[in-house]
């Protein structure tokens, strides 16, 4: 029998994260990041966005490779369906952010995860974007996220993981709180 406590292995380098937290507390300038994307309209409702660089830790940074994302609308919108709809991309972002958070928090709490599956659903009344009813907003009327998690933990510990990941999630914050948006234009 081993008395030594097992260490969870979720592939998250918590020591590095905690180190970063400490370092960035001392150097608030380095904590200021800028996230970027470029996007080009291709045709119809089809656009392609590109992500490769961002700013942080006091300098320009690069992803390991350039990522592209196609967005479009489905055929029932008389479109070609070359990619997910932009609103689905929002759900993708939320799921990615919460998932990363769950893994980090689990690692920090020494909880071994076996599987983490999220199902997301957002309601939307098209009368908003179509301008049929002024009282209906354009965006989601709500988002429901369900997590099915298999882990070496009690149901309460799992619920706490998911709650804590929302508390620390950037995308959750972006969605649940207002953000000031500036859009400018120039003629090419």
């Amino acid at each position, binding site marked *: 029998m081993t008395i030594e406590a097992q260490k969870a292995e979720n592939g998250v380098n918590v020591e590095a994260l905690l180190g970063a937290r400490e370092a960035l507390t001392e150097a608030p300038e380095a904590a200021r990041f800028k996230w970027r994307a470029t996007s080009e309209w291709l045709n119809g409702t089809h656009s392609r966005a590109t992500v490769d660089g961002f700013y942080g830790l006091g300098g320009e940074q690069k992803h390991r490779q350039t990522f592209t994302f196609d967005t479009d609308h489905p055929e029932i919108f008389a479109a070609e369906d070359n990619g997910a709809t932009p609103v689905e991309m929002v759900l993708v972002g939320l799921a990615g952010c919460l998932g990363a958070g769950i893994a980090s928090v689990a690692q920090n709490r020494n909880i071994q995860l076996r599987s983490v599956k999220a199902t997301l659903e957002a309601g939307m009344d098209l009368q908003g974007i179509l301008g049929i009813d002024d009282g209906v907003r354009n965006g989601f009327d709500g988002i429901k996220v369900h997590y099915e998690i298999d882990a070496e933990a009690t149901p*309460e510990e799992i619920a*706490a993981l998911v*709650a804590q990941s929302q*508390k620390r999630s950037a995308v959750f914050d972006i969605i*649940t*709180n207002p953000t000031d948006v500036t859009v400018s234009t120039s003629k090419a």
Partner: protein
Amino acid sequence: MTTRAKRRLAGIVDVIVIGAGHSGLAMSYALSQRSIDHVVLERGEVANSWRTERWDSLSLLTPNWMSRLPGYRYQGGDPDGYMGVREVVDFVSGYAVATSAPVISQTTVVQVTPAGNGYRVSTERGDWHCRALVLATGAFNVPVVPRLAEGVPAGVTQLTAMDYRNPGQLDEAGVLVVGASATGLQLAQEIRHSGRPVTLAVGEHVRMPRVYRGRDVQWWMLASGVLDQRIEETDDPDRARRVPSPQLVGSPERSTLDLNSLRGQGVEIVGRLAGVRDGKAQFSGSLRNVCALADLKMNRLLALFDEWAAVNGYDSEVASAERYAATDVGAAPRLGLEFGREIKTVLWATGFRPDYTWLEAPVFDRRGNLRHDRGVVDAPGLYVLGLPYLRRRKSSFIHGAEDDVRELSVHLADYLDRTARPQLAAVAV
């Protein structure tokens, strides 16, 4: 320079304690026990904060039996009750009398500067010099109001929990209470009972039942050691010090005050006030999560109590374990409200912070917080008392002063000994 040079010196003492609330008085008692020469400077009268800064109906959220200070304790006939403001004033004033505290009242400290081997403490009635200085000026001097208050339309009255006295002050129309600590919930309830429509904006909060398994929840927290937890044992001291006060009220019925009970009384619950735009208040969509977090934390606390009771043989003395309904925020909490039409008053119950603007010494960090190690400030002979989780979870409560003052007065006495007449010490060796 010249104005200061001309000011008369009011006195020279070994120690000055600024503030005659319970913290300063407790330190004064500890210093007197050691025959250390000191005075307590107080801008108003003893217990000034309780006399001048609290709302009319406030009762302590700690039961009477818990109210104790070094050498002094509650003697009344209702140990399980909760003192009203008047009784707290009497309790703290009684302590000053019982301990013959050398309080100099009506003396506001306007400036403190390091001088010689100590501090010059300037008051409106002359300057003092001391070798060691204790800041007991309170942790809750100025209300914290978020920046977005600036965007609230002019026609809406804004006040803080420090200005609030009773519902009679308010317009008859809708009131938005911002903040879900003990203060926010108590005021939301009282204003709702006055007939006004009340909306409560809820961020992170601490939920607990008033009575658990037949005992006051404060009894559980004290007995199980929760209130004695030390700051150095916490994972994140900064966070621990920022935790809002628990949702509790001290009432004769000992009833629980939480978001469910408030909703039952007709208070509308919404998310954290996240923005003010175009005359509208915007509330965060995080309400369900902050409630889930609070419910989970409460259940962990109750589980800890249960475990403690089982291990320590209390199971037969207390009622059986129970759990409470999860917080119900309704089907669709509102995300916005219109100022003016729906809301005529905003009451900020968004916390308080200490005021050290008169302290001119390099003892503040980047964020303007006092740099100290559990009350020992980062400057020779300087101490602070009464801040949340200063040394222990109970540090900012009346019953928390005793342990902190005992330890810090030892440090202070040692400091005075170490710095006293070094030439004599050298001869003695």
